[in-house]
């Protein structure tokens, strides 16, 4: 008896007992274990700090917590979080729009895609972070240069996925539509885009964390707000508690973004029909 059969079996009581692995009780127990582990690690950190390792380097949980609450209390944290979230979201949106359009355009134009192939490869191979000084030059020290960096990171990932998806489209489906007098625009909107949709979503999904990376990196290079700026600033003040506090916030932000992506993906799967 395997787990999926349980609800079909009439005498499910002892079956349940037999495979109690993923039961609610089990996962509740796991959560407790995870919380305990976290608490132990925090205690070890607190204990080691100042005794085994100089607290100058690793600070300690109490100080980090104090710093965090201090920033929350005076509201400064939210200014920085908002700046980073804004740059991430804007970068993601702009990068994915350009990436999808570029991917579709090159996907349906064999001549142009072959023409641009070496240049696209070179640009893709370039570590995009190295473009940051250029963006500061072009877009200034404000949020625009962070958006640009996030957008460029997102753009290439989304572009490559969309392009691959468009090239994967079954030629027979395209021929079939053309035989039924579909115009080029109709072939693109009614056959190519729906068919490449799952590839595009995959590209969008993997690029979300990169938008955050782009925004934070941009802020670390030159900014006066944002979490990247704050971690950079704390570091330059030799304020290890501050650095750890920002890292925690960035990690929470990343987890929240991933969670958001999961929710969106779940919603999508309800109407999206996966190809054959």
């Amino acid at each position, binding site marked *: 008896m395997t787990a999926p059969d349980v609800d079909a079996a009439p005498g499910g009581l002892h079956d349940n007992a037999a495979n109690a692995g993923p039961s609610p009780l089990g996962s509740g127990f796991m959560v407790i274990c995870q919380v305990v582990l976290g608490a132990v690690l925090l205690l070890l950190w607190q204990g080691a700090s100042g005794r085994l390792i100089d607290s100058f380097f690793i600070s300690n949980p109490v100080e980090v917590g104090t710093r965090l609450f201090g920033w929350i209390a005076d509201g400064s944290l939210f200014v920085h979080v908002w700046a980073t979230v804004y740059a991430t979201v804007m970068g993601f949106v702009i990068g994915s729009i350009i990436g999808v359009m570029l991917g579709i355009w090159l996907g349906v134009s064999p001549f142009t895609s072959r023409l641009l192939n070496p240049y696209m490869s070179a640009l893709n191979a370039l570590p995009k972070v190295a473009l940051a000084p250029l963006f500061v030059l072009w877009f200034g020290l404000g949020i625009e240069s962070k958006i640009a960096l996030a957008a460029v990171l997102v753009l290439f990932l989304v572009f490559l996925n969309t392009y691959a998806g468009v090239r994967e489209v079954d030629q*027979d489906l395209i021929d*079939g539509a*053309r*035989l*039924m007098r579909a115009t080029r625009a109709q072939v693109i909107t*009614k*056959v190519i885009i729906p068919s490449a*949709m799952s590839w595009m979503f995959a590209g969008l999904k993997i690029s979300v964390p990169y938008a955050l990376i782009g925004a934070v990196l941009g802020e670390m290079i030159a900014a006066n707000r944002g979490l990247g700026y704050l971690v950079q600033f704390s570091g330059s003040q030799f304020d290890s508690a501050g650095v750890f506090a920002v890292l925690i916030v960035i990690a929470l932000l990343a987890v929240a973004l991933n969670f958001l992506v999961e929710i969106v993906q779940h919603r999508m799967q309800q109407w999206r*029909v996966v*190809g054959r």
Partner: protein
Amino acid sequence: MIDLRHVSKTFRKQDEIVDAVRDISLTIAQKEIVAIIGPSGCGKSTLLNMIAGLYAPSSGSIVYKGARVSNINTDVGYMTQKDNLLPWRTVRDNVAFPLELSGVAKGERAVRADQVITHVGLDGFGHRYPQELSGGMRKRACLARMLLYGAETALLDEPFAALDAQLKLAMHDLLLKLAAETGQTVVFVTHDLMEAVTLADRVLVCTRRPATVALEQRIALKRPRDVLNVRFTNEFKELYDALWERLRVEYHEERI
């Protein structure tokens, strides 16, 4: 109406050169129903692809209604061997696809699609997705879509191969009725000699690859034909036996 003049097609796969079709000349009249029969992989599908304008012939030319076919031929409805339904659309939306492309309003589309879906015996499956259907049902959805497109020429590549016997007869009946009603020219590929004789005005037998026309047989059975009972008539039996005898010789010769 369709004129094939010394048509040949060779494919190049890396270093290997494959002759799919060699020097076929053939004229198909308007409203004629032509069956092409022959061994698997003999280039019959290639022939249909060329009439549809999906492949250009390597030599020779195909003339459709006086104009040389050099691009996609949108006057034909083509039902390919592989069902090419769009997997993200329901059966109804797939069948209505040609109407959607030509800008027919949504309400009318649905009504006309449901009508033809009922014709092919798929009523109740309009809201299903192609991958939820069996192979035979998908074929019928393709047939429905082609019927709704209403092209003046229908190209069918083994249209009824995946169907059970009763359904096959029903589809034969439907095809003949609609072809008579709309005056469609029909070219279909089949393995089934019975089917070929039942439906066609003319049966062409292809040789093994590269395909050439080995023999041609007029089927002068009167129309409208009763697809169920025509096979029990003496004329049918004579034609069938004669074709079968010649087929047997043809295949026998090739095996040597």
